[in-house]
């Protein structure tokens, strides 16, 4: 994407497994999802974000399964002519992902496990 001559900015977001959450030590995090709805929703989100901000491209990669701090959970890359749209698209994509993509997280701490 950086080779496109009209690309002026690339904004990225990386979500990680935190080592602490609400004062509790996170030993691991399990992510489960409703596939194939999650994949469909991610693609819809990608198309919606590209159109909304008029950007060149958007890539979203989301992991599932058992992860530990500081593993990467989700990565978003937005490519645009200008940095303003790239930043805005990146922010929009992660905010909307959390509202619309059926993925759930369970935290494992010394005190037990909790769906968050």
């Amino acid at each position: 994407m950086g080779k496109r001559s009209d690309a002026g900015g690339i904004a990225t977001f990386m979500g990680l497994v935190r080592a602490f959450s609400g004062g509790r030590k996170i030993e691991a995090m399990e992510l489960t999802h409703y596939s194939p709805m999650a994949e469909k929703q991610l693609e819809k989100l990608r198309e919606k974000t590209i159109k909304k901000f008029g950007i060149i491209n958007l890539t979203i990669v989301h992991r599932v399964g058992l992860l530990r701090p500081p593993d990467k959970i989700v990565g978003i890359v937005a490519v645009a002519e200008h940095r303003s749209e790239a930043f805005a698209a990146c922010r929009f994509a992660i905010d909307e992902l959390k509202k619309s993509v059926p993925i759930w997280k369970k935290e494992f701490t010394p005190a037990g496990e909790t769906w968050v």
Partner: protein
Amino acid sequence: MKILYFAIIREWLKCGEEEFHLGSATTISDFVKKRIEPRLNGRKIDGFLFAVNENLVDGNHLLNNEDVLAILPPLSGGASQFAFR
């Protein structure tokens, strides 16, 4: 009709999926109240979402025997217009 359960409701019911035969047309809300809530030992599913054939719908959606109904715990981003109340 196939029902899929995820995350916490899968743990509550100790079940990932089931098959039901619907004798007559029923809304999701009515189905949940009659066939799901009695098995939850008092736990509530307010705020849960429903998807039929991978599309989010609300509780007034009418179910049929060919559908795949997924009962989805709330997503971390907050309340949805489709949330069960």
